[in-house]
Each structure stands twice: as structure tokens, then as C-alpha cells.
């Protein structure tokens, strides 16, 4: 199903927000003590989360991985709370206990995020099981990278989900790298989607820089899942335009490769398409970008002005 004008706008908005949000984090994490720890960004991959989440309803569950800012924002997480979490502030989504790597936003059904590679895939089978068990009209989406498809958890979870026709979509964001290992250095298989055949589920390769194509594939897989026909594996071919994290200087990524993929950046692509098709005017675009810039500025201000948690907070939330 081709996305409507509203859906296209929604996706563009999410992509612009994610890019603007992460560009800001990129800046802030250079300032000592500001945003501690690792800073793992999805620059260049925004079309995946935006396309997938545009096809979801509020009740649908997502299970993101370590590269999660785009997933969370696309599902509707509050930018201020996500930013505050990255800062480690008490007003963050998780009161500063998580930081950037495992932000959970249950308010938008991003129930849990894991930075253990492959960890989310069996969990997604579990949430999907619960959805089926309670006859809910919702599904689960699990986001993971090409590297995660090398973990045993991927194979065990796909097998189980297929066996029990669980309503889950496995979304592999193949950004060509798993850490410093390029795709062909960590698996012989060219398309991760081919692995679906081993578990008797559909496997689809999608241009991960084409938000509309990602959206359409997700709509199909979601319908299938809701019809009780079981899971789908969607492989979105995309590219990690920055290092694994911000401390990675990409010495192993060929310059020309990075430049070539920057040309294929999903943002100008969707923006260009919408302008060309007359779905929005330059003025509307300017207004949207300005609004997003303000949203991100406000998120940073909120994070900066929020206090750190009291030490006593360290002991809360271990148990219910």
C-alpha cells in the first residue's frame, strides 16, 4: 500500500526530528561531562524507523536495540524526556537509570529496549505471544541490526515465532556494518532476509532508505500478522553514515562508500519527492523544519534545566 499524503508527512516529520535530535546529541556528547557514555546514532537510517512506525498503531509494541533514538521518536516518545534520559536526569524516560542505550518508553508501547545484541528478538516473540494469547488486535515489531542475525537468539526466536504463528515483524536494519565488521566479514549470506526461508516465513528485502517502501512492506507484514498468518522478516538495506558510536572514527569504512551513501540519504530523498510531487511547498517545509528545530531546542533546554536524581533514587525500581 502506498503511503497517503498524511503518512508521507508524518514520516518526513519523524525523520527530520530524528536527524535534528541526533545532530544535537552529536554536538553535546563532545562537551565533557554533558552526555556521558556511548553515543550511538542512526544518522542515515532514519527511513527505517519512520517507515515502520508510520504503519503501526499506538497499541503495537516495538522492541528497539542500542541504536534506538529513531525508533523511540518515531513511535511518539517525548523528545524532551528522551533527551533528559541521555543526560541522566531525573526527568528522563527512565529517571536517568538507563541513559541512551536502553531507553524504555512504555507510554508509547516501546516496552523495553536492550543493548545486548540480539537480546530483543526473543523478547519480541514473547510480547507477540501475549498479544495472540489475549486476542489483542496489535502486533510487535523488533528492530535489530545485521550483526544481531548472527546471534543464536535470532534463530531460536524466528523458529519459535514461526512455529506458533506469532504476530511479530522482525525488522533487520542492515546498515552494512556490525561494529567494525562489514557485512561480508561476518556472514556469507548476502540477504539476511534469506534466513526467513529456514523458518518458513516470508523474508523481504526493502530499500531501507525509501521510507515509503519500508512503510508499504510493514503494512503488508502487519496485515499478515493480524490475520494470524505469523511473522515476517523484513530486511531494510541502509547504511551507517557515522561510526558505530561517536568515539569511532570510521577508519575501516571507505571514504567513497560513505560519500556514495550520503548521496542516497533518505531525508533529502523523501523531501525531494514530496516537493516534486507538489505534496508540500517550500514554505511548508521551512515551517516544518523550524518547528522541529524549536522542539529539539526545547528538549535540550528541558534536559539541561532538569536536576540529576538524588542518590536515594539509586535504590528505587530494583523491585516492584
Amino acid at each position, binding site marked *: 500500500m502506498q503511503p497517503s499524503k498524511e503518512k508521507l508527512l508524518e514520516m518526513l516529520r519523524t525523520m527530520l526530528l530524528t536527524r535534528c535530535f541526533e545532530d544535537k546529541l552529536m554536538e553535546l556528547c563532545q562537551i565533557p*561531562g554533558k552526555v*556521558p*557514555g*556511548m553515543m550511538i546514532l542512526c544518522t542515515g537510517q532514519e527511513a527505517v524507523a519512520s517507515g515502520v512506525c508510520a504503519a503501526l498503531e499506538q497499541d503495537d509494541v516495538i522492541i528497539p536495540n542500542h541504536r534506538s533514538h529513531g525508533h523511540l521518536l518515531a513511535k511518539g516518545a517525548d523528545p524532551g524526556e528522551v533527551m533528559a534520559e541521555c543526560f*541522566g*536526569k*531525573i526527568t528522563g524516560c527512565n*529517571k*536517568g*537509570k*538507563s*541513559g541512551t*542505550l*536502553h531507553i524504555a518508553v512504555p507510554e508509547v508501547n516501546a516496552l523495553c529496549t*536492550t*543493548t*545486548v*545484541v*540480539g537480546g530483543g528478538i526473543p523478547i519480541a516473540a514473547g510480547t507477540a505471544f501475549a498479544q495472540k494469547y489475549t486476542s489483542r488486535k496489535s502486533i510487535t515489531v523488533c528492530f535489530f541490526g545485521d*550483526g*544481531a542475525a*548472527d*546471534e*543464536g*537468539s535470532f534463530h531460536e526466536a524466528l523458529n519459535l515465532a514461526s512455529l506458533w504463528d506469532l504476530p511479530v515483524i522482525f525488522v533487520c536494519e542492515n546498515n552494512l556494518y*556490525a*561494529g*567494525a*565488521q562489514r557485512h561480508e*566479514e*561476518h*556472514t556469507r549470506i548476502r540477504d539476511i532476509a534469506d534466513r526467513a526461508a529456514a523458518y518458513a516465513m516470508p523474508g523481504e528485502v526493502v530499500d531501507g532508505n525509501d521510507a515509503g517502501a519500508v512503510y508499504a512492506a510493514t503494512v503488508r507484514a502487519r496485515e499478515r500478522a493480524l490475520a494470524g498468518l505469523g511473522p515476517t522478516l523484513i530486511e531494510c538495506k541502509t547504511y551507517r553514515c557515522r*561510526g*558505530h*558510536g561517536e*568515539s*569511532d*572514527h570510521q*577508519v*575501516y569504512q571507505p571514504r567513497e562508500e560513505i560519500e556514495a551513501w550520503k548521496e542516497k540519504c533518505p531525508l533529502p530523498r523523501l523531501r525531494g519527492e514530496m516537493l516534486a510531487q507538489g505534496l508540500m511547498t517550500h514554505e511548508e517545509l521551512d515551517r516544518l523544519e523550524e518547528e522541529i528545530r524549536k522542539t529539539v531546542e526545547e528538549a535540550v533546554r528541558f534536559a539541561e534545566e532538569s536536576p*540529576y*536524581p538524588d*542518590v536515594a*533514587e*539509586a*535504590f528505587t525500581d*530494583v523491585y516492584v
Partner: protein
Amino acid sequence: MQQLTMGQAVNQALREEMLRDFNVFIAGEGVGVSIHDNPLMPTAGLLKDFGPERVKDTPVSEAAIAGLAVGSSVMGLRPVVEIMFNPFVTIASDMIVNHAAKLRYLSGGKSTFPLVVRMKSGAGFGAGCQHSHNLEAWMAHCPGLKVVMPGTPADAKGLLKSAIRDDNPVVFIEDMMLYFIPGPVPEEEYTIPIGKADVKRVGSDVSIVSWSKMVGVALKGAQILAENGVDAEVVDLRTLLPLDRETLLTSVRKTGRLVVLHEATRTGGFAGEICAIVAEDALNSLKAPFRRVTGPDIPVPFSPPLERFYIPDENNLVEAVLGIM
């Protein structure tokens, strides 16, 4: 003497053992081509010098990495595999706990598994609890494994060389924060025996027992205590399994007081084992109850003030010691 960080010291040990013995190879996620192009990291430059046959970058597959170590070691190779961060050992743990630790016993002593699993541990780098979780007590709960946790670059080098030459499976845990702190390392060839503790500071009033990064905290604490008229002895266990009971008990019998310091959480932490040994075998020497200074029983929080609070420091230690003086 050369000044090396622990990362560089581990690197030298790997290098020297690979030169010495062709059966030694290394494998892990990014041990060759890495996202950290930093010369202080333990495997920096090894790919260039030893080639991709001996420096194996693996897929993100911890179970297979540990299985590779088990299988290749029973064939006579001496694998040194890396688990990127301590918490990810859970994925490798079937191979380590159920296989590496037990298969020799199950073979009635006929098969040997001379492998080393290296892993980074420790809190303090703001990554949160899925990267920072000190699980050494889990490993030490597995007869058949040796568990080594060096606190200085020199110990790391000598102990890793011993670990590689050891015919048993060795879990070698490196605190990441030590990778960047230089210390003296002998230039000449040496090894340090596994299972031998080291008295890092001689004292007469209290035995502070520690390992890994907390040895540095213990020494700082001892300094402050000295200024307060308390003469602390610092015992660096270096190896948790097999444990050097003799050095531990000798020290406690001498000083009559025991404080155990570790970063791992308290309940079920290895300090409990140390205290139990002292209670069993040196209770009569104790002039005061023993104390444990440990991380609190919580997952390592991300937020900077909370993470700082989590990690025991010299003030926590000094307070505990003064409380039993």
C-alpha cells in the same frame, strides 16, 4: 622499567605468547579491525603483525566464540577469546560453565581445555548495567575454571602469560578503567603464577583484601588511613579461583582485622567467601568483626551521580576500617 597501561600490558603478553607458540590464536568481536582505533586497547596492532589466520574477527556470536575456544583447545590449540563486556558472558556461559569447566572432569582427566576467555568489566564509563556488571563471583562458583582479576599492568601481563600457558580454562577479567592508567612493567620476560596473592602494602593494623580496579582504591584508602594513624595491609588476591588462602590467612592472623573491598554487588559477592574462610580458620585472631565494602545491591545506574555512588571509593573504605579500629 617501562610504563605501560593495562591495555598495553595485555597487548604485550598476547604478542609475546603468540610469538612463542604458534598454537596461540585470538578471536572475538573486533579483536582485529576494531571500532576503537586506539593503541591503548589490548588487541591493537595484532592483526597487522600476526595476520587474519591468528587474529580472528568473529561475528557477534558469543556462544560460538566460547565454543570455538572449547573445541580448538581440546585439539591442542591455545585460544584466547574475548567477550567484549562482562555481561555478555551470559550468552557464552553455556560453553564456559557447562563445557569448559566440566568436560575435563567428565572425561576422567583424559581431555584438557587450555583456553583463556578475556573480558572487560567494571563500572565507570557511563554505559549502564548491560555493559557494567561484575560477575566474577558467578565464574568463581564453577569448579574447573580459574578466575584471574589483575589490578596492575605488571600483574596483568605476567598473569595473562601464565593463563595462556595453563592447561586449564582461565577466565581473565580486565577492568576497562585500568586500560588507560600507566604503571611500571618489567622489560624482561616474566610470568606471575596463577593462584598467588600479592601483598601490595605491608601493614599491621588491618588487612584490606581486594582485587582488580579496587586494589588502587585500597592503596589510596591505606594512604588516608596512615595519615590517621592506622597501618593497613593491602592484599591483592589477583586470582579468585584457586584462592591463595595462605596469604589471606597469614595477613589476617597478623593484623587481626579484615575488610574486603570489591566493586561487584554485595549479596553473593566474593567478599562473602573471603569472610567465611577467615571465620572458619582465623576467627580467634580477629579483634573485631570483619567488614565488606562493595557495590550496593542494585544494577549499575547510568546517571553520573548515581554511577559514582555505586562504585566504592576510598572514603567508603576508610569509614569501614575506622569503624572496626
